[in-house]
């Protein structure tokens, strides 16, 4: 320690007032936190938002009962189904209504899809271009129904702006596929800023042509997550009023036996 002598005052250079140091550190820390908070609140990244969407959307398992109201050219059909989903690669769906479709089942394992119809007692594999065909005459394709991967794994996201949907403030995200084997090359989604639920989605081909739109009509909280329980799907290449998807019941993270996700379960 060196000393600096001046008249009536001796100050030892190198020593510090502990209280002052603490106060300075506290001020700096508070400023840093405020800056960090400000940064997070004003400019979240697309990837960050997409992660939040996936966190809200995905569960280890899901058991759901739902209805599809399919508006056709000459009539409207209602199809009721129960689905079991595990992770991103396994799902099993059984159609419960109408009587003609009752007992028809679909099994997805990875990238493969099989369907079973009791009237023919046949298990048929759906692959290739057939995956783009409509399910039950709806505006959803088999590919749409097979979607299970997290968006953040398949898309790069950037925030394009803000908007309001269903009276909720939303981020508008533009997603671009990371690889060529993704069904839709680009998407635009409107994400609720508080609930991280996509309230609207436009899906595009590589050429930029609009292929499908989804619009959420209502949202509810189930088991701590916000879930879209009434969604309108529209195939932009078809005329008509589209398909409505209505979620009746949902159980998350329930135990599902392994045998459900097997081809043997199709014939039971």
């Amino acid at each position, binding site marked *: 320690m060196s000393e600096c002598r001046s008249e009536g005052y001796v100050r030892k250079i190198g020593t510090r007032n502990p209280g002052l140091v603490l106060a300075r550190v506290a001020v700096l820390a508070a400023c840093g936190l405020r800056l960090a908070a400000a940064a997070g609140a004003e400019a979240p990244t697309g990837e960050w938002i997409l992660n939040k969407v996936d966190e809200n959307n995905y569960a280890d398992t899901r058991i759901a009962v739902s209805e599809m109201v399919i508006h*056709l050219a000459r*009539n409207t059909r209602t199809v009721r189904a129960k689905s079991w989903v595990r992770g991103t690669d396994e799902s099993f769906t059984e159609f419960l209504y109408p009587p003609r479709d009752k007992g028809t089942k679909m099994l997805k394992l990875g990238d493969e899809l099989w369907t079973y119809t009791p*009237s023919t007692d046949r298990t048929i594999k759906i692959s290739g271009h057939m995956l783009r065909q409509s399910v039950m*005459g709806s505006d959803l394709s088999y590919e749409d129904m097979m979607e299970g991967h997290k968006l953040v794994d398949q898309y790069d996201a950037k925030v394009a702006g803000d908007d309001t949907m269903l009276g909720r403030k939303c981020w508008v995200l533009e997603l671009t596929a990371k690889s060529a084997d993704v069904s839709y090359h680009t998407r635009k989604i409107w994400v609720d800023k508080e609930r991280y639920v996509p309230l609207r989605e436009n899906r595009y081909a590589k050429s930029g042509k609009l292929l499908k739109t989804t619009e959420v009509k209502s949202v509810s909280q189930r088991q701590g997550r916000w879930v879209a329980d009434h969604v309108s799907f529209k195939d932009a290449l078809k005329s008509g009023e589209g398909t409505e998807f209505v979620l009746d019941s949902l159980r998350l993270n329930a135990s599902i036996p392994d045998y459900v996700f097997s081809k043997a379960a199709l014939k039971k």
Partner: protein
Amino acid sequence: MTWFLAKGLLRDRSRSLFPMIVVVAGVMLTVFFQSWVQGENYELIRSSAAFQTGHVKVTTRAYAEKADELPNDLAIEVVSGLLAELRTEFPQLAWTPRIRFGGLLDVPDSLGETRTQGPVVGLAVDLLSATSPELKLLNIKEAMVRGRLPERPGELIVSDDLATKLGIEPGALVTLFSSTMYGATATANFTMAGTIRFGITALDKGAIIADVADVQAALEMDDAAGEVIGLFRSGEFDGRAADKVAAQFNARYAGSDDKYAPKMATLPEQGGLGQVLQLHGFSLGIVVSVFLFAMSLVLWNAGLMGSLRRYGEFGVRLAIGERKAHLYRSLVAESAIVGAVGSALGTAIGLGAAYWLQAHGIDAGAMMKGSTMMYSQVLRPHVSAACYYVGFIPGLGATVIGAMISGATVFRRQTATLIKELEQ
């Protein structure tokens, strides 16, 4: 005089043989070419009528707008009523319902799971009724390769190429996977009774034919059909008659704006076929005209050359007192004889070749492998009434005109210089 000239031509082959050969060859080519291009037009109409359009076709208006999509959700309902109506009002045509559909043909393994599958284009026609015109129209019996025709419900026939690709034999179980009229998933088991070769590449790649009642059941189309086709009982397409029938039928619904009201369209009005036929006819007309013109020039030149070669002969005949007009007339008459006989011979040979090829055809399947056109891969000419006389236009007409023009030099010959010419 004609017989005298004819005897002269027969005895002096140097005057007649070469022109005759040229006329025969030219006319033969003209007749054969005419029949060949007509064959293309005829086949286009025949294939289209058999597999796609009929001579007339009735669908709902909504179906007609999206016909390429095979929109069975827009099909005719209560088709039995419509058929009864059409058969009563227009008995000059045979009416039959059809359903066109797409889907997957799935072949099971021993566990009932998919062993192999392939996309198919399906045509449901009346296969089992005794009075159905479909077997003859589609030439199904003659086109069978393996197995037999369906004899009972639940049987279908598959294109032979597809059956080979899927590795299935007659008697195999197959499942059709498609969509019902109301959008639901449609699956139905069938037994493959036999295989067929349509001779049309687009169909041979992957088509199936099933009975219309089976497909109605599978696709939930009770008493419904996508289309009703009408065919003239003569088997030949009559454009004027078809227009009249269509106009009469459509007039009944002119005041309605119901998009499911039936609408009748003639063969040329469907799928742009009218424009194709018009363009085809126009192109063929130009090609035939150019060919005729070219042949006419050749034969005209032959006539000219013939006359010019006989310059000395004309001089002698004038010198011994034959009148110029008489000489000219005999020249023209000779060319007419050569032209007429040559044309008749050339027409006979050309028609013979055309008839033979019409019966046997040329298999152009290798050249049409990637084709999606509804066009037979066996190319044939078609002999019509025009083929019997079209050869005479260059054969007789051009030859005579050539002689008339070259013969005009006779009138420029000066009698005073004849002796001098003879000395040369």
